[in-house]
């Protein structure tokens, strides 16, 4: 019942969005090339699917996204586990993190392009930065939040590092870390597009720039929709994984 309701909500919500688009299209007097109708964007989407550019660009973007996001999560969790156990060190690291964190990853873009040139690296680096801070900080917080009884049990049974981390700290902190990993996927996906618009010659972000250069607003809008849909799917996958983890970790059945 709840599922059904949410499907209904989603359909209505998207229909209203497309309705507003259609009305805006009808009342505005831009040319079709600059402001296409939903139907024209749909045709552009079909065109991209049939000529294979969409699949190719999705593949390119997903490759960069996976590398950047996964490596960022691994490094951030690893560092977070260490820093969470070293509050004395974290006290000195934290101010620097707080300084770097509010800087939009896009601000790094020109610098990264200067260093690495246009290509695969800038987009990967920007995704890495986008996911890094939220995952690192949520891992440190998760480690600090561990029920002290686990650490007491570990020391009572003589469990030492590295087993302490693998057997106690990581699993005990994992539900909260998983939440950080889940939230970061959205942020990272947002910045993939920014990264590809500035620092790449391929991928979904580049396709938007390319469409603008060719004055193909229909392709541009269709690509934006695809980016949104992939974002929802990524979030859904991680939400599902997070739920599974919480359940396996003794949360609500």
């Amino acid at each position, binding site marked *: 019942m709840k599922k059904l309701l949410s499907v209904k909500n989603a359909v209505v919500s998207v229909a209203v969005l497309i309705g507003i688009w259609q009305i805006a299209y009808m009342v505005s007097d831009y040319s079709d090339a600059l402001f296409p109708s939903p139907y024209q964007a749909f045709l552009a989407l079909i065109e991209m699917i049939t000529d294979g550019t969409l699949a190719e660009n999705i593949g390119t973007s997903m490759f960069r996204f996976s590398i950047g996001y996964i490596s960022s999560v691994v490094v951030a969790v690893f560092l977070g586990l260490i820093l969470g156990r070293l509050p004395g060190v974290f006290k000195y690291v934290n101010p620097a993190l707080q300084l770097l964190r509010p800087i939009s990853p896009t601000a790094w873009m020109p610098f990264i392009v200067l260093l690495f040139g246009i290509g695969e690296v800038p987009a990967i680096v920007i995704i890495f930065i986008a996911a890094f801070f939220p995952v690192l900080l949520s891992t440190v917080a998760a480690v600090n939040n561990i029920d002290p009884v*686990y650490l*007491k*049990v570990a020391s009572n049974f003589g*469990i030492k590092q590295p087993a302490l981390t693998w057997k106690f700290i990581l699993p005990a902190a994992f539900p909260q870390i998983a939440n950080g990993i889940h939230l970061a996927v959205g942020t990272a996906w947002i910045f993939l597009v920014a990264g590809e618009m500035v620092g790449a010659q391929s991928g979904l972000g580049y396709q938007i720039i390319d469409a603008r250069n060719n004055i193909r607003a229909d392709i541009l809008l269709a690509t934006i929709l695809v980016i949104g849909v992939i974002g929802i799917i990524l979030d859904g996958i991680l939400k599902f994984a997070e739920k599974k983890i919480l359940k396996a970790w003794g949360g609500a059945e």
Partner: protein
Amino acid sequence: MAYIEVKDACRKYTQNGKETVVLDNVSLEIEKGEFICLLGPSGCGKSTLLNSLAGFERLNSGSVTIDGKEVEKPSVKNITIFQNYGLLPWRNVISNVKLGLEAKNISKEEADKTARKFLELVGLEGFEKRYPRQLSGGQQQRVAIARGLAVDPDIIFMDEPFGALDAITRMKLQDDMLRISREEKKTIIFVTHDIEEAVFLADRIVVMMADPGRIKSIVKVPAHSTADRTSQGFLHVRDRVFELFNMKTEEYIDYVI
């Protein structure tokens, strides 16, 4: 020299500039194989004393020695059972019980055999593959007890282990704990604020008072008293302890060692 010796133990906390004396010159001797209950109202320092014995906390002054050695940190020879069980929710029952065996140098088969043996001892055979969340509170505490026994400790510390359980479950666990303590011949230090629980389980009851935390007296429970909760002997000792909490110490010198 006694097996466990607490000498002039002092512990203070300062909070908002106000000093609380949690343990005020506490001295206590415990022999090997004794079942000791630390009994007293909430806040009288029972957990603090137990944690100092178990090596989780340090004293401000005084000393705690076990078998002649100063207690400095937790040891796998002295296992603590907590009120909230301390089971790892991501491990099933049997792998929770095997936890302490993993740090030891024994084969997988050996660990498996040991874990099953102690699960049977606490009455949980057939529950090996369950997860803690699929067990009742009483069953979870049984798993924690099996996990503690599996590493063959000399001493078991228990801090209000049955405090979160309903009365019937609690009595069942008390029965089993008494049986296990006799079969396994462990020294057990058991914190409780339940007078009947203390009388039922203990060889000696250490009666504590708060502000400052101290030992008021030590009540020896004659062996025959514990057999059944409705016997004359049991009720007699229980009444004595009740009266102790009503501040009538002097008249009961004969129960004070």
